[in-house]
């Protein structure tokens, strides 16, 4: 069951005369399963915010369609089951945290009977209880972000869009937000995460998609994207022989970094064991073996560079 289904969406922003039209999304399709944390990645201007705006009905697609929680995005009532934390959001600064949450709760159709309890619970969750009656104009950026997260959860949504949720939050706060997201996931909430902080996305997301100039470059689970080609770093206690002269290693991408260290790319565990056997045969004493995974950041940079090179 998919929480989000995007079918061939194209969004063109028509420009005034003498200016070029901007294609923010180009025939973009994507699915997000229910209950997963999905990370959307892309450089500035990739079309990430436009995609969220389209899904939430802020702008309309030029062509294509999308469903949220099995309902078309044109059905505005579906938004009562959705939470949203916009990037660089602001709330009316003359309201308190409590008033803000009440305002958004009422617009979302939250049952009034237990609203006060719900507000207290959420403010406690984002560690904002003591600021409940303070006007927003006195809040720091981190506090605004915590309140934003609370308002995104006020209607107990089945699907939450979070645009840069840890922006302006200190490392401890980030950890707390990550814990909240994992807790939400465990309760069955689908989370659509848009962040520039790739390591954050990597830490919490089940699946990610990389977007550039309105096109989907790669999509898959974090594990799939970061372990397609594994690099092992092998450290030895004795001096290595000339590795490049060993004929059994000729078909491997191998780098001898110094007399005691080499790195080698292998496809699977069998190949790794074969390499170890060959090293032992040449009387190499293995001290440590470390797997060097591709980080999401490396993959991201590599994909974006490739897509630019193809243009």
């Amino acid at each position, binding site marked *: 069951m998919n929480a989000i289904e995007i079918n061939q969406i194209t969004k063109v922003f028509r420009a005034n005369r003498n200016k070029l039209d901007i294609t923010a999304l180009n025939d973009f399709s994507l699915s997000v399963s229910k209950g997963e944390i999905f990370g959307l990645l892309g450089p500035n201007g990739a079309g990430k915010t436009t995609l969220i705006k389209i899904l939430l009905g802020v702008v309309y697609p030029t062509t294509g369609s999308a469903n949220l929680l099995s309902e078309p995005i044109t059905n505005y009532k579906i938004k009562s089951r959705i939470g949203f934390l*916009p990037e660089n959001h602001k709330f*009316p600064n003359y309201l308190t945290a409590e008033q803000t949450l009440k305002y958004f709760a009422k617009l979302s159709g939250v049952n009034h009977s237990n609203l006060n309890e719900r507000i207290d619970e959420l403010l406690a969750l984002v560690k904002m209880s003591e600021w409940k009656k303070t006007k927003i104009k006195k809040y720091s950026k981190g506090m605004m972000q915590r309140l934003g997260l609370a308002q995104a959860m006020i209607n107990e949504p089945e699907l939450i869009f979070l645009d840069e949720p840890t922006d302006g939050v200190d490392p401890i706060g980030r950890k707390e937000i990550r814990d909240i997201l994992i807790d939400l996931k465990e309760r069955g909430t689908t989370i659509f995460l848009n962040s520039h902080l790739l390591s954050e996305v990597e830490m919490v997301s089940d699946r990610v998609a990389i977007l550039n100039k309105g096109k989907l470059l790669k999509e898959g689970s974090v594990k799939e994207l970061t372990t397609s080609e594994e690099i092992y770093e092998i450290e030895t206690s004795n001096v290595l022989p000339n590795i490049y002269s060993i004929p059994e290693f000729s078909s491997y991408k191998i780098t001898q970094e110094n007399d005691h260290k080499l790195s080698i790319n292998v496809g699977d565990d069998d190949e790794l064991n074969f390499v170890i056997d060959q090293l032992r045969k040449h009387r190499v004493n293995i001290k440590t073996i470390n797997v060097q995974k591709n980080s999401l950041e490396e993959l991201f940079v590599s994909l974006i560079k490739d897509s630019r090179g193809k243009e």
Partner: protein
Amino acid sequence: MKNIFEMFKKDLIRFVNDKTALLLTFLVPAVLIIIFGNIFGGNGGSRGKANVIFVNKSNTEAAKIIEEKLDSSKSIRLIKKYRIDETDSVTDFTEEKAIEYVKAGKYAAAVVLPNDFLSDTSVTMSIKYYYDPRNEIESSIIQGSIQRTVFTQLPQIFPSLLTRQANKFLGTEEGEGFRSDMAEIVSDYFDVPKDSILSFTSKEITSSNFLNESTDTSSESFIDNLIKFDSVQLVGADLKNPQVTRIVGGWAIMFLLFSLTSIATSLFEEKQEGTLKRLLCMPVTRTEILFSKYLFSMSLGIVQLMVLFLFSWVIFDVDIFTNFLNLVIVIIISASAAVSFGMIITAHAKSLSQANGIATLLILVMSAVGGSWFPTFLFPDWLQVVAKFTLTYWSVEAFQQVMWRQAELSAITLHLLILIVISIVFNVYAIIRFNKGRIF
């Protein structure tokens, strides 16, 4: 000096790039100068004519001549006929119908030349003037134009009237003796033949006398005694403060437009702040967002106008309670039209500064053209037509009707209908634009 020049250059670039500042600095004054120039004729433009009902009940030659002269006046336009709706025919105004029309505010004044305007035996010229001084300037111009027209055509009639008056008081025989004695005295003093003086004072009143002669202005005060100018104020005579009553409606709608447009354009501020985006992601329709803004603006506009009118009552003793219900109706519908104007500006503009610039320009122009500042009759004819395409015109007229004339609801139905239509059209257009999503 170099630093000053660089900073000057930076300010110049900023100014040139600020389209709103350019608009307000050059276009607004230019447009207002054009309007003022046309109103006061400074640009060679001609002022529009004031419409005045004219009823000629006299069959005398003199009455016909007065009518001809008034017809060719540059200041007033005589309206002699009216349409009967039931039969869709046009007929001459009667004195009663003229009074009814002036009372209803359809025309500012009516001139009636009665049966006894100037008979063969009259010792005075009698003119009836019914008027509604809904605007002081308009009223003065109309009355002045009529009096001037009549006075300047009397160089030959007043000796005859003098002779008739002398004959009336002294009897024909003694009157003629008096005329002969006076002619002799004038003859002695001014060395003019006595026969020519007697011939001048016994002239009959004919069209050629009227048309070929003129009098100088110094004779007007003297002639004034020979004319019975019977003025009857039909409307507003009982008002405690006519001056403030006249202008309060015009200023009310102008301030309403300014304040309510700024609330409507605050949607742009919400867009900049990001609160609008969040709102759009809630389970509410764009129409609901727009209507919440509309409702708030309307409420504020109504309160603002109520305070303004209460203030004018407390400070200037303006009567707002005699026709209070109708005043409230005009306030509500005017507020609705003003908010709609703000909505359409918001729907069309691409930024807050653009919205404010366009709104300021249009509000000032509409206020000037629509009658908030000057009576529209002062405008050239073409501008009077343009005025009817502004919502200020219909609002100002409606306020005048209920406050100045204490008019019934039926008298302002057209005004209210037009304002309602403006509101509906503007709002529907704004909703369509909002739902198309272009401003977001």
